[in-house]
């Protein structure tokens, strides 16, 4: 065990897998010599050499396309998209290529690839460095969509993703790279070392896909969330004093429905929190599922606290970001409703 930031944990996952499996290769824009704009691949090229870790042209469609071909060959490519906001040129290859390769060939060819990308806001990145497009992937059958909220999960989930034979979209909430962030942007930054979830084994381990974690047990209301918002939700629970059970989904899709249904059936109340725009966001699916599976237990409408349905603005960042105040207000509404 050692203390790692999220960046270090992610790097460690790739390091471990590059070391264990010759078929693992790592590539993307600026990931080679430089080590990535967020430093997630720092040192890996020096350690494993250029055929294993290398820079690519700026062409997300090409990055995903060659990753699929490599996967079909038998490699386990780990490709980085520099920001989730820039995944769209690769969207066709992900949806029409990776997601359906196994299906359309009835298992003859497969694409065991992992596509990593930083997502989310809170860094004054404006509309092109802040997006959370996870719902565009959860709608696509054949993909797995994963988003960790802390160093321990990040490493364990990333190793599980690389080892997984399905294509995995791996989101990294960039606001958490260097410390947990509860939405109080005006307070001093907390480093990961101050938190037990930064205790990470140095070697190989996995956090299983399709398993949610109860981040904070509680009885009054269930909060379904993931990524940065796990920490915001915790702050909201703390500050409102509401005994919320916070479920960190970790795997968005396929997901751990049992944990969700178990919790909401118990609390009878549910608040969904994500940073992405609301309409047709992943929260919609969660709300639909919860009302389908827990209808007779629900005592209040399911609340959604999300980014507004606008592009992510630059100057109005904190009015856009669903911070602890907004989450807290939703917890209150959910618990006070008849």
């Amino acid at each position, binding site marked *: 065990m050692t203390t790692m930031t999220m960046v270090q944990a992610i790097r460690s996952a790739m390091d471990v897998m590059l070391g264990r499996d*010759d078929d693992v290769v790592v590539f993307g824009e600026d990931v080679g010599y430089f080590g990535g704009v967020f430093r997630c691949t720092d040192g890996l090229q020096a350690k494993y050499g250029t055929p294993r870790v290398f820079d690519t042209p700026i062409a997300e*469609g*090409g990055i995903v396309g060659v990753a699929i071909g490599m996967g*079909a060959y*038998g490699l386990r490519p780990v490709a980085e998209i520099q920001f989730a906001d820039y995944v769209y040129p690769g969207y066709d290859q992900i949806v029409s290529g990776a997601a359906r390769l196994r299906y359309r060939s009835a298992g003859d060819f497969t694409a065991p690839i992992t596509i990593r990308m930083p997502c989310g806001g809170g860094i004054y990145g404006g509309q092109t460095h802040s997006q959370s497009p996870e719902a565009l992937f959860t709608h696509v*059958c054949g993909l797995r969509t994963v988003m960790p909220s802390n160093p321990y999960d990040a490493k364990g989930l990333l190793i599980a993703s690389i080892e997984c034979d399905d294509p995995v979209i791996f989101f990294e909430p960039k606001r958490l790279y260097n410390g947990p962030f509860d939405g109080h942007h005006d307070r001093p930054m907390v480093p990961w070392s101050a938190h037990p979830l930064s205790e990470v084994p140095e070697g190989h381990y996995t956090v299983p896909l399709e398993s949610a974690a109860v981040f904070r047990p509680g009885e009054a209301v269930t909060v379904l969330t993931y990524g940065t918002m796990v920490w915001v939700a915790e702050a909201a629970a703390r500050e409102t004093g509401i005994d919320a059970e916070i479920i960190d989904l970790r795997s968005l899709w396929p997901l751990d429905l049992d944990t969700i249904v178990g919790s909401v059936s118990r609390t009878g109340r549910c608040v969904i929190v994500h940073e992405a725009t609301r309409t047709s966001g992943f929260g919609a699916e969660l709300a639909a599922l919860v009302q389908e599976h827990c209808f007779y237990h629900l005592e209040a409408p399911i609340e959604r606290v999300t980014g507004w349905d606008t592009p992510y603005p630059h100057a109005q960042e904190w009015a856009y970001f669903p911070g602890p105040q907004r989450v807290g207000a939703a917890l209150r509404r959910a618990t006070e409703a008849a």
Partner: protein
Amino acid sequence: MSGYPPLELHVPEPSGRPGRETDFSYLKVSPAGAVRRPPVDVRPIETEDIVDLLVRVLDDEGRAVGPWDPGADPGLLRRGLRAMLLTRAFDARMLVAQRQKKISFYMQCLGEEAVGIGQALALEPDDMCFPTYRQQGILVARGYPLVDMMCQLYSNERDPIKGRQLPVMYSSKAHGFYSVAGNLGMGFVQAVGWAMASAIKGDTRIASAWIGDGSTAEADFHNALTFAAVYRAPVILNVVNNQWAISSFQGIAGGEAATFATRGVGNGIASLRVDGNDFLAVLAASRWAAERARRNLGPTLVEWITYRGGAHSTADDPSKYRPADEWKRFPLGDPVERLRRHLALVGAWSDEEHARTLKEVEEEVLAAQREAESHGTLASGHVHDASTMFDDVYKEMPAHLERQRGQAGGTR
């Protein structure tokens, strides 16, 4: 700015349309034997002077001439001719089957048989091809069972891809035939990734990528060229210029201003423009490109000039947009007839043998059809069970799909 006349938008138009004969002078045909054959280790940019010309081996009499004559063993050429005849017979039969509504859809490769089959004969069997929907010839040349092809077409209980895809979207890893996507361009860049993987692993296998003239406009084409050039991937980038993309002629894809082979050089890739209806030229150019890849000299782009002899698909009616006799007037003729004439000239084929072979392939196709139909057709409802629809979405079926499979069973 004064003094300039108003701007105008240029919209390319083919010279021929229904009722108006095509002027084929746009094709720029070089005489057989006229184009130099660079050494395989040519600097990519130094193919620049030949990408506007047309590599050809067979002259009008059927003689093999010039530096690109592959000096091919007649036995190999006979195999090629037979594969072409078999493919053509197969196509013809399946077209009928579609008209009889036994299969839902079909796409022939009539008139373009030489390109895929010629290349297949120039590759090793374990090289991986990333075909379009019009490269069934590769499967035939590689000996994939016709029955299996047909079972895919019939979407029946023996369809190797379980009825998942439209007819002609074959997949056979064992035969080095990558799953056809349906989305144009998709596989072209994936082929480059496969080739990169082969190089990363120190393998000796190479990739063969296929795309149509119309589809070169897709982003995947650009991505393939960029990545292939940057990493010098061991891949053959085949552009099949059959003059048409459904109803739009090759000028709409950008063929007016520069040949598609020129695109390759523009990206730093050694490139050739080759008579795709000249089986010997196909063989020679494919060998040249394969040798480059195998010697780690990087990718080669080959533009194959050929003609889509039939309709785009069974859903298409080309009489609406091109002269009915265009194929007959196409300057590069028919690949089958041209190879037949060459083989006859060198004494390796006769009219009797031709007639006999035609009969043989016809019977082979018929026998396969009988067997395939014994496993059912889409119309007869003998298809893979509906519950199999939920397989292969993921490696292991997740809970939500198990739930849905249950609901589907109960028509929920």
